């Protein structure tokens, strides 16, 4: 990258300083590299985050296998067994999946008749778990989308307008917050169950009550963003509230929004599992991961696979989504992640050991120290070599 050319230049010569402004322009012209937008910078940092990339692979794998195997929306999948038809229990329902190759003394890599085994009535457990995974993923995505949309719009509107609008919206938020999520979800789950055990409906309802956290976060973010001068600049140009909120404020709060959307997905999956486990969620013959765990918790000692498959998938998926959110947060706000050096899980959360620890910044950021300008906030994302000591 050519960003540090100016700093690496050899001893100062008089031609260097012919005119600082002109020198800066020359440097800009010289830069032939394609300009990087904020989004591109974020993407680059994200792709460097190992844990997030591994999580992304895990998520893609789980989604691909679960949807392709059982089919979706009437499209048949490649797995030929149904999750509702019972059959004869073969070999005590033990899993036939084998991952140890023959040359290591195993049975060779093959799926077998019932890779995840069979449950007590002889239903194929792989089919059940895959359908359950589908339900959980749908749940997570629908809740994530609704939460993000409702939460960010309410938060942004309330933060931008402040005053009475803010009071009303935030009191509504408070009311929704004080209702225990599990209790209301249980009540709604009952209704949803009665309506026709539609996972969409349940997701819609959970989504409509779990946006509060995001709304508050976005409001806080917008409250600080709206004091920035680019907002005043847009206002004085005559821009309306809609344009300022959706064109200027929301894109700048995208970090908070995206990161929390991923966390919302993870928590929705866990909530659905809890509800189904408690018996308020999905009803048989429909199935979900939580329901499977609840149904076979008694089988833990003698047929542990009935517990471990759905449990393991919930764990893997929720963990992967959380790591993804972590990676996104680091990508959106590199300063935060490096100032507070979190001891990541096994310390493999993506920081390249050889790479510099601090100062991962967009190139060419220059901070004016704001001489005689006490009110000037420090530049966002800025790392000034001059003030470097305290960045």
């Amino acid at each position, binding site marked *: *990258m050519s960003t*540090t050319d*100016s*700093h690496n230049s050899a001893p*100062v010569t*008089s031609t260097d*300083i012919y005119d*600082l*402004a002109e020198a800066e*322009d020359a440097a*800009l*012209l010289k*830069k032939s590299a394609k*300009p*990087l*937008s*904020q989004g591109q910078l974020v993407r680059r940092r994200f792709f460097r985050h190992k844990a997030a990339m591994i999580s992304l692979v895990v998520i893609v794998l789980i989604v691909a296998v679960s949807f392709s195997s059982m089919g979706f929306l009437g499209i048949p999948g490649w797995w030929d067994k149904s999750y509702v038809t019972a059959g004869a229990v073969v070999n005590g329902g033990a899993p036939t999946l084998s991952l140890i190759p023959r040359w290591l003394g195993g049975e060779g890599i093959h799926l077998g008749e019932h890779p995840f085994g069979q449950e007590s009535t002889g239903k194929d457990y792989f089919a059940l778990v895959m359908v359950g995974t589908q339900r959980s993923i749908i749940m997570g995505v629908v809740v994530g989308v609704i939460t993000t949309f409702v939460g960010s719009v309410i938060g942004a509107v309330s933060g931008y307008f402040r005053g009475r609008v803010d009071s009303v919206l935030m009191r509504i938020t408070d009311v929704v917050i004080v209702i225990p999520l599990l209790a209301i979800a249980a009540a709604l789950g009952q209704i949803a169950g009665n309506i026709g055990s539609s996972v969409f409906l349940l997701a819609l309802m959970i989504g409509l009550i779990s946006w509060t956290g995001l709304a508050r976060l976005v409001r806080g973010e917008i409250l600080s963003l709206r004091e*920035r*001068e*680019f907002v*005043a600049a*847009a*206002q*004085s*140009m*005559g*821009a309306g509230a809609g*344009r300022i909120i959706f064109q200027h404020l929301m894109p*700048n709060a995208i970090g908070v929004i995206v990161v929390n959307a991923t966390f919302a997905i993870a928590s929705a999956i866990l909530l659905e599992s809890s509800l189904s486990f408690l018996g308020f969620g999905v009803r048989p013959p429909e199935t979900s991961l939580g329901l499977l765990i609840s149904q076979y918790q008694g089988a833990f000692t003698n047929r542990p696979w009935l517990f471990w498959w759905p449990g393991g998938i919930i764990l893997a998926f929720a963990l992967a989504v959380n790591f993804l959110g972590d990676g996104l947060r680091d990508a959106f706000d590199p300063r935060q992640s490096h100032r507070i050096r979190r001891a990541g899980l096994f310390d493999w959360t993506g920081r390249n050991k050889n*790479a*510099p*620890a*601090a*100062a*991962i*910044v*967009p*190139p*060419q950021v*220059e*901070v*004016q*120290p*704001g*001489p*005689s*300008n*006490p*009110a*000037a*906030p420090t*530049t*966002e*994302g800025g*790392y*000034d*070599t*001059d003030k*470097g*000591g305290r960045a």
Partner: protein
Amino acid sequence: MTAVDPNAAPALAFTDLNVRFATEGGIVHAVKGLSLDVKPGEVVALVGESGSGKSVTSTAAMGLLPANAMVTGEARVGGVNVVGLHEEKVRTMRATEIAMIFQEPMTALNPVLSIEKQLVETFELHDIAYGSDAVDRAIDLLRLVGIPEPEKRIKQYPHQFSGGQRQRIVIAIAISLRPKVIIADEPTTALDVTVQAEILDLLRRLKDELDSGILLITHNMGVVADLADRVAVMFRGSLVETGPVQDVLTNPQHPYTKKLLAAVPRLENVELAETAVVEETIEAPRDLVLRAEDVAIEYQMRGRRFRAVEGVSFDLAKNEILGIVGESGSGKSTIAKAVLGLIPVASGTLAVHGEDLASVSRRRAKEVRRQIGVVFQDPAASLDPRFPIGDVLMEPMIIHRVGTRASRLERAHELLDAVRLPRDVVNRYPHELSGGQRQRVSLARALMLKPELLIADEPTSALDVSVQAAVLEMIKELQQEYAFACLFVSHDLAVVDLLADHVLVMKDGHMVEHGATSSVLHHPQADYTKRLLAAAPVPDPAEQRRRREARRALLASQ
């Protein structure tokens, strides 16, 4: 001034100091082989523009560089090399051997602790004094830095002190253990000029009393002339010139120093003594763009009203520049905001082209606003970081539905030419540009709709002097081309003198003086204007000493 013993062992000595930062963009060589001494009782000013490495140098001496810094060479504090020294050893040296005065007195003090606790802390941390003994010492310190009634005020909290007093307290903490070296990092930058002059007086007195070496880091040549014995000029990490202050400031050798000094706006030929008022000649008929009559502006804070501006009247015609000057809190920016429609006018008339902004309909107000362009103070904050420059420039046209995509782009190119930026900047993002370039983009954006009125709210105060000079020059040039009226808000009298035709001096929301620049800034009538003019330091040590005496005389006479 006490003479500095040239043979004394230096209190602070840098030898071939190199600091490199490892960043995402590669290695940044921030300080390149710097060698510099500070003797006891001497003030050495380290000057340079942002990014020159002056703060990195001082931070290296404090041992406070971040983990990604690689330091080679020596930084000796009282004979001990702190480069590579164990963290714990460096910590015990802080405050006893080396102390720091920070730029921002608002944030350098902890708002939830009383001044007493914060002063006593240093004594206790270094095992010097405890309990009432420590409190007595703290009170002595406050007296030393000129806080009135120290016994009573020591119990108070930071917010109960003014900005200048807070900086005095920060200085008191820094000198509490009589360090051999004091690093003052832009100690007066956040302060108003009149307060700045007082703090500089205090520092001058203290360094003689304590016989400490002071490393003064600043970008303000006036402050250098006022306080420093020697000057070291840094440019892009290298020391380009060192020498006695008189030599460097009046007869610079290095081309960069020459350029830097030439870029500093100077306010000369100020007549502070009583003189006859220069009669203003009747002017040719003016094409009025903005007229303010007895304007009052109020802020609403939690139901309470706060009157920020009262009884302000002025007018501004096409092709003129009106400078509004004043210290912080004087209401100068409030006027600019009211003209922009960001704050409503409480009473009086504020009319653009004869249309009172308070009484016109919303749609009409939007039309009126189309005639106004604005440039804000902070070039980093006033451009949306997620918009490429092209979108930034075209936004006013999109909001007012002017032109097609092609014609908008054409206009953007036209204005980029006018502010001398390359046209392909349209695809770049604000963070890729330097501060000066961003401010030029702001200027271009303000002119997109061919406004009749340009509002510039401290447009250069966040910029380095050389860049400031270029931007000011550009405003002048653009005015000649586009013939707009300009409302120029600034705290810097020299900048206003350079640019404005008329000047309005504000204090505490009221007008103090209003008139042609030549009369207000060169033959001031109001005492406040005189004080303001006397407090602004000039980059010439001899001249500055003269002005310091004049200021003392002026203050004594009032």
